[in-house]
């Protein structure tokens, strides 16, 4: 029988070492599908590393992909801290993107300098409002937010499609379901000329630092942690539980919304219904990999993005099915998750310890 004994104190060496070790294991496991696809394993790994960080281009790509993951990761991290299970990052991301386009494509007459701030605010607001609904349903009516947020993802995606085929469709778009382009002045500037990494990354990093300070050093953070760990005791202690949940919900939604802004106003330039390859869901995993620590989210996001971009370009260079990338990412996630276990527990099978 497997048994677990909680560790009283976890050494940082272990806390950092285990996930890294796990990541390496996962990457070595990737050899199996590579081999199955009949490619040369050694070159595969070299290509993978190059693809992820072999050139300025690669790094730019890595960061560009990490940007939305950081933000959706933060969205999950802050919400989960309060045990507010926001599975709706995907929908909030689209809401943010939609709002960003609405404001950024010249829908409102705004002076150029005001455009970028306006776009950011609009996106954050949209995401926050979308998350407000399930939050209120939870605190007022006790409706399980796992389900409501999950369902809203589909409602919003359908709404976006509706907009893209209706009011917000690009007249120049030849009937394609896509929005009008975001004005040049409203686009988040690129950080490196002719590279895709954009100012959204800065936004994401600032958000991470902000979240870190909020959670650890402020009264609000204190209250969020208390409500998350034991709402009943928090209420008895005079902490405004409802208000705290609402705060967390808004913040979480805003982060996810910003992720959407980055994707349209930083990368794509306009909105289509297939904007996000599941960044919202990936964010949850990123947050968990990071143990819900905001700064950890940054690292986890970069890891996930790196694995994907690397494996993706490797599969291309080798002519192996490009689905390999997702597979490698998935395997890495599982391994890193499991490693977390060995950080928190002594694992015993029968009488004998597996780990000291």
């Amino acid at each position, binding site marked *: 029988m497997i048994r677990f004994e909680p560790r*009283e104190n976890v050494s940082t060496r272990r806390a950092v070492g285990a996930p890294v070790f796990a990541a390496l294991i996962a990457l070595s496991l990737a050899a199996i599908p590579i081999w199955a696809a009949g490619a040369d394993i050694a070159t595969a790994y070299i290509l993978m590393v190059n693809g992820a960080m072999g050139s300025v281009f690669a790094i730019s790509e890595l960061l560009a992909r990490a940007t939305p993951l950081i933000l959706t990761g933060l969205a999950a991290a802050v919400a989960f801290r309060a045990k507010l299970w926001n599975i709706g990052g995907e929908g909030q991301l689209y809401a943010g993107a939609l709002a960003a386009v609405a404001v950024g494509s010249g829908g409102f007459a705004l002076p150029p300098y005001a455009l970028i701030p306006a776009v950011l605010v609009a996106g954050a607001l949209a995401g926050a409002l979308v998350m407000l609904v399930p939050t209120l349903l939870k605190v007022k009516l006790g409706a399980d937010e796992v389900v409501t947020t999950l369902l809203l993802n589909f409602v919003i995606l359908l709404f976006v499609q509706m907009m893209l085929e209706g009011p917000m469709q690009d007249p120049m778009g030849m009937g394609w379901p896509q929005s009008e382009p975001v004005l040049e002045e409203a686009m988040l500037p690129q950080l490196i000329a002719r590279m895709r990494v954009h100012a959204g990354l800065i936004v994401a990093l600032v958000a991470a630092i902000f979240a870190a300070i909020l959670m650890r050093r402020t009264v609000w953070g204190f209250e969020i942690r208390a409500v998350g*760990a034991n709402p009943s005791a928090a209420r008895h*202690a005079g902490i405004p539980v409802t208000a705290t949940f609402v705060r967390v919900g808004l913040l979480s939604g805003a982060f996810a919304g910003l992720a959407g802004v980055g994707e349209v106003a930083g990368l794509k330039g306009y909105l289509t219904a297939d904007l996000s390859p599941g960044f919202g869901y990936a964010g949850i995993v990123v947050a968990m990999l990071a143990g819900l620590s905001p700064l950890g989210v940054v690292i986890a996001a970069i890891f996930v993005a790196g694995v994907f971009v690397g494996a993706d370009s490797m599969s291309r260079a080798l002519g192996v099915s490009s689905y390999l990338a997702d597979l490698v990412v998935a395997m890495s996630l599982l391994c890193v998750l499991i490693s977390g276990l060995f950080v928190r527990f002594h694992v015993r099978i029968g009488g004998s310890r597996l780990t000291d």
Partner: protein
Amino acid sequence: MSDAPAEQAAVLKLTGITKRFGALLANHAINLELYPGEIVALLGENGAGKTTLMNILFGHYVADEGTVQIATADGGLRPLAQGSPQAALKAGIGMVHQHFTLAENLTGIDNILLGTRSLLSPIASKRSARTRLDKIMRESGLTVDLDTRVSRLSVGEQQRIEILKALYRDARVLVLDEPTAVLTPQESENLFQTLRSLADEGLSIVFISHKMAEVLSASDRIAVLRHGELVADLPSELCDRNMLADIMVGRHLEPEARSEVEKGPALLKLSGISTGHGRDALHNVSLQVHGGEIVGLAGVSGNGQGALARIISGLELPRSGSMEIDGRRLKPAPRAVMREGLVRIPEDRHRDGIVGEMTVAENLVIEDVRSRAFQSFGFLDFAAIDKRAGDAIDAYDIRCPGGDAVARLLSGGNIQKIILARTLDKEPKVVLAAQPTRGLDIGATEDVHRRLFEARARGAAILLISEDLDELFQMSDRIAVIHRGKVTLPQETATLNRSQVGLMMAGQESEDAA
């Protein structure tokens, strides 16, 4: 096995049981034997290792050293497979856990039958089981409606189900962990009568308790644990309260005497409060508590104490009626109520008292994080928080590794001290203390009582909600009784005796109370 000649062969034998949790030595080389038909009380401070020992016996934990042996049919002993509740059950060991192990979404009978037959058996006819249970209930007097969902049963009824679980598997040994911590005096009495009759049938019983009175009256033998070691194992008739306390705590304890304090103005005033519906409702409740007095509210739990506590703490607003603190009406919100100088010692300290995942320090300031003292511009002042923690830990002698220890790992007694520290240190006007000593050992209990008396001396008005008559009579200046949501006029403690209060708790108006 009931007609086996008693007092000869042990039915159960623990030898050299040692259990460590990380660094902590929860049980150390404990030897204990149990004979047919006897009732053994297991005594010890919070964290002494009682529950651990019993959990090992029942197979929840695996001992690091030592063996558990169980009697065989031919009177010999055989080792019991460790770490397997299944084996324990097979061997005829039943356990009633402190925190009940019932599936609340099932009926009583389904809980009892759980695991008693093959999971693969296609259909579950309960007829035979039912007849057998009816017989058991008749013989033991443990009657309860088997077909109501457990969630709708009272604590006492749930406990009967727990015991029936054991009897249905015809247990030879029955273990009860703090069975009376949640029972009313009447319920406790009934329980011990039942246990006695079961013992006469040949059942061997071990029960854990912190209540001297019942330990002395109900047990044949008393085993005392201190810091994981078995320090005494004596026949009950040789023991008395003080010597047990000495053995247990290692120091002599005298019950706090109530000093004279002159009454102040009415600080807590409830008038005509009604709310809720069902078992936990209040009907037109009026009550006054003056500064410098302790009013005890006696009552079987679930007669409205919950609602009353919620209303006084501002967690719920009454349908009608009003509440004043020091002559000021206030709007129902925990924060507002606190600002008026009312503090609460909640009934369920694990659920409502502390945030187990947070540190001792954080739990000590949780009620005041927003006060200037611990934050500026919304940023926490860690220096101040740590200082506060250090002071409180010393002043209240909270036994823990330090302010940054996780509160969950503290014993009930120490958890209660955290709550006392953060509430009473505010020099409150009104104190609402709900079951403040439930589950605490005598050491911790004395401590709570002393603190409450100090508050009283300071001129605070204290409402003490309790089911423990000893406590009520020891602490209260006046005693009121709550039954079915109605509260009687408080009467001077001196003019009352236990039986009257007991009757009133059970619903009869006592003659000279009217």
